């Protein structure tokens, strides 16, 4: 029983982070039709913003809020500087540009800050375990699950109810037609990037609170996981990103449980293999926007 609860919590924990990241990718994909490879670097930017603010003596939680806004701002800047001039080019061009941004940011982090990992002091409240009978649950994991679910619910309300949310979904559904209705292309795209940056910042907070350090490639691994989750989910709508994120979290947690210790190193390889098999059978992901079957 204890083991099962532990297992469930690790699924929700991993799934929450992947889902937040995958959502960020999908929100931008909906507007511009490409996966922003520099999404993970927004996490790293959050990490450094947090590191510096704590260094300057700001209280942790204030620094967190500012760093999340900073990540959102950086995403908006990224769009302004790099993607807007390429508006109307093929999604492939945008994808390759995002590789370039990511590569450039890595170099900047390494040269301007440090190639090595920097510790971030995590407050007492987030470290250690809660014990319930025989059960030890990491506080950071509980925190992750609560924060992620709250943000997912808020995001859902925003997208479903607010005028801006409806405009975002409309223009993700048909960009040109939405424009003819007066939905400003520049505004919704900026909004999508801001949201994706905020989501990356939230994910980074959760990621870092379990690891206590930031380094130039911090965002790389989670971003690749998020790409997988987004692709599994189908890229076409936020629900897919959620399913994809939790499915991937479930898969990883399960592999961790069932694989013998000497095979655990192959976990990611097995996940990727399963992804390939999955895509052969469902090339459009779990939730396909294309009502016609592909074959």
């Amino acid at each position, binding site marked *: 029983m204890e083991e099962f609860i532990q297992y469930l919590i690790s699924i929700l924990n991993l799934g929450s982070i992947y889902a937040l990241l995958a959502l960020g990718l999908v929100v931008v994909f909906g507007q511009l039709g490409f996966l922003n490879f520099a999404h993970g670097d927004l996490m790293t930017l959050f990490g450094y913003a947090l590191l510096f603010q704590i260094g300057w003596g700001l209280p942790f939680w204030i620094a967190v809020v500012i760093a999340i806004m900073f990540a959102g701002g950086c995403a908006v800047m990224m769009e302004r500087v790099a993607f807007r001039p390429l508006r109307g080019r093929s999604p492939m061009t945008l994808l390759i540009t995002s590789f370039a941004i990511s590569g450039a940011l890595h170099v900047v982090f390494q040269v301007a800050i440090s190639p090595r990992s920097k510790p971030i002091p995590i407050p007492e409240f987030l470290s250690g375990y809660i014990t319930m009978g025989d059960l030890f649950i990491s506080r950071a994991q509980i925190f992750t699950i609560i924060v992620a679910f709250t943000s997912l619910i808020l995001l859902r309300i925003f997208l479903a109810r607010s005028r801006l949310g409806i405009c975002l979904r409309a223009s993700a559904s048909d960009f040109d037609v939405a*424009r003819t*209705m007066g939905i400003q292309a520049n505004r919704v795209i900026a909004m999508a990037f801001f949201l994706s940056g905020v989501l990356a910042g939230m994910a980074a907070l959760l990621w870092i609170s379990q690891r206590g350090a930031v380094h130039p490639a911090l965002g790389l691994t989670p971003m690749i996981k998020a790409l997988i989750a987004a692709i599994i989910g189908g890229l076409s709508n936020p629900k897919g990103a959620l399913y994809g994120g939790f499915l991937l979290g479930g898969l990883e947690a399960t592999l961790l449980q069932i694989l013998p210790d000497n095979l655990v190193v192959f976990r990611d390889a097995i996940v990727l293999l399963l992804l390939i098999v999955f895509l052969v059978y469902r090339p459009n992901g779990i939730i396909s926007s294309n009502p016609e079957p592909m074959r």
Partner: protein
Amino acid sequence: MLKVSDIHVSYGPVAAVKGISFDVKKGELVTIIGANGAGKTTTLNALMGLVPVSSGSMLLKGEDLSKIPVEGRITRGLSFSPEGRRVFKSLSVLDNLRAGGNILSKLKADERIHDMMEQFPLLRERSHQDAGTLSGGEQQMLAIARALMSQPSCVILDEPSLGLAPKIVSQVFEIIRDLRETGVTILLVEQNIKKSLAIADRAYVMELGKIVKSGNAKELAEDQSIQDSYLAAGS
């Protein structure tokens, strides 16, 4: 209301619209008819700013459309129902209407949604359903209602009868006729030539990127060459 003079549009090396001119006066229902690939959709997309024109001018109430961004047309009273309906499939019927009325105040938008549901009762029944789950005819009604949300003074409709059952086609044409009665200026592109000539004031016939004929709709319906090339098959 609308005045188009000698516009040219090309897709790369392919010239799709080769210097056409037409106008639509206030309160008129004007139709552009023609076979597949004549360049009708291209002309409308050019009017909406969705494809660039290489030369010529387009005026909306005397204002140069080339200087107005795509998003600015609706605030000047010009609204659009595109070819193939293109409703927002993953959004509910209600949210489609809200998107259509996104430039209105919340109060005004709710009022318009109410009006649209009165006018299209089937949309009320389906208001919380995703638009993608509607039938073709229902999607077309939604596309028209969505275009009317902003209370436009001029509506552009691209093949609203495309792919619909004959009974629904008649309904769509009735809606367009009623709309015109309310004083809205309408530019209608159609392949159902008989029915569109029957409700229109004036018509332009397009062939291979050019306007080959124009005039009073009743007279064109009687015109021998039109009868021979478009109406003979009994469409």
